[in-house]
């Protein structure tokens, strides 16, 4: 098991959520689920509509992580943020292009970055990280 494997169908399937913030909004209760689902996670309704989130949000706070995961060694130390998206949901996601923990309340936006490389066939997996665009209001 100690290799990093990337499955092309897995990456292709996840493209909606890995490359853009695809979400679903519940027509019944209004809840937004980041990463689409056929059902609303809050009320269970299947009357949901697909929406694309803007990718913009506000950093609540972040952590500087030193704990490595196989396949992600190159992005160490890794900054991870708790982000409140402009549409309302709160998510945990990696930050990019930062050298120190950004100011709380910074405005952030989702950008596409390399995530990891398959250790045997060299396939690259891309996905979203968040970049600081301003120190906030």
């Amino acid at each position, binding site marked *: *098991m*100690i290799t990093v494997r990337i499955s092309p169908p897995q990456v292709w399937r*996840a493209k909606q*959520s*890995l490359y853009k913030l695809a979400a679903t909004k519940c027509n019944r209760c209004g809840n937004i689920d980041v*990463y689409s689902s056929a059902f609303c*996670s809050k009320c269970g309704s299947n009357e949901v509509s697909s929406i694309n989130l803007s990718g913009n949000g506000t950093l*609540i*706070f*972040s*952590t*500087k*992580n*030193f*704990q*490595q*995961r*196989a*396949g*992600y*060694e190159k*992005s160490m130390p*890794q900054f*991870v943020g*708790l982000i*409140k998206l402009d549409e309302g949901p*709160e998510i*945990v*996601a*990696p930050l990019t292009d930062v050298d120190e*923990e950004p100011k709380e309340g910074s405005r952030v936006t989702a950008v596409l970055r390399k*995530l*990891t490389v398959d250790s045997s066939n060299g396939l690259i*997996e891309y*996905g*979203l*990280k968040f970049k600081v665009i301003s120190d906030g209001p």
Partner: protein
Amino acid sequence: MSKVYVTGASMVPVNRHYDMSLLDLANSSLMGIRKTVEDLPEIDAVVVSNAYGQKLESQSMLSYKISRRAGLSGKVSMTVEQGDASGGASIFTAYSLVKSGVAKNVLVIGVDKFSDFPSKFVNDAVSSTLDEISYQEGVTTSSYGALMMKSYMRKYNVSEDYFYDWAIRMHSNAVENPYAYLRFPVDREVIAKSQEVSTPMRLFDIAPRADGASALLVSSEDYSKISEVPVEIDSIDFSSGEPSISSLEFPIKRANVNPDRTVIEISDTFSVSAAIELEAMGLAERGKSIKSLDQLNVNYSGGLKARGYPGGATGVYQAAEVYIQLIGEFPGRKAKEAEEGLVLNTDDVLRTSFLFHFKR
């Protein structure tokens, strides 16, 4: 309704057991049950609690393999997986089988193994409990813990050193527990200087992973006398849902117990988890739990912090520890007045929890 009892328990000391496979560890816990339960009844079912064996040890169908090697072929067997809450889910399964009358005696075996691979692979395996996208983005569970800790520090206006008392208490409890992994005391200076894991969390805010196996015998009322002191599983509460890190809301039920008479084991994956759990259960005032540990008989084992964290076996250890306390035979720090027991077994970032209430 029929009553359900714990009638036996055993534990393998939590450690880096380089000389033992998952199956060897499970066998060792079964040997412990055979040695401690004098008249072992016929076993009707075997429930194996394991979280990371498929990913790290490439082992599936563990329950069949363990049962076969123990001479229990032909009995109903299944493996239950719910991350670090696997133990809770397994005991819940055993309880349901006995309560419904489908089985009279069920063996629950918690077993997991972390020491075969360097930590970056173990971090990867443990992080597979996160949602698919977080996992693919390379996030670790410790970063979730760090964000929980920051949120707690903001909300209650405390700093990192507020949490030191948790590690100090857990290590001092573990010194007395022969089944614990880290049996040495620590002080504030050691903690303050320890390695940063994910800011503001340091090494002493997280649970050390190690190998372990623990077995629990769950029986119907007709067999309750197998145990010299019968211990009833009085109730099990379950809760799950998406937490809110920013508002510190987690799916944990309130516990209705008298703390003076109750011995408690909780899932302190991170020191902040301990604080969140004690407060959510209503056992301590919000924002003050870590400063009020003297009022609680909590984690006399040393907890995940110092007894150690054997993955999907953890919940079975917790129940075994509380059972052994209630029959008065715990070889470490004793809760002498305890007549009731409480086990809170959760996953690593508090999305699902099982709350067990035991009575002797």
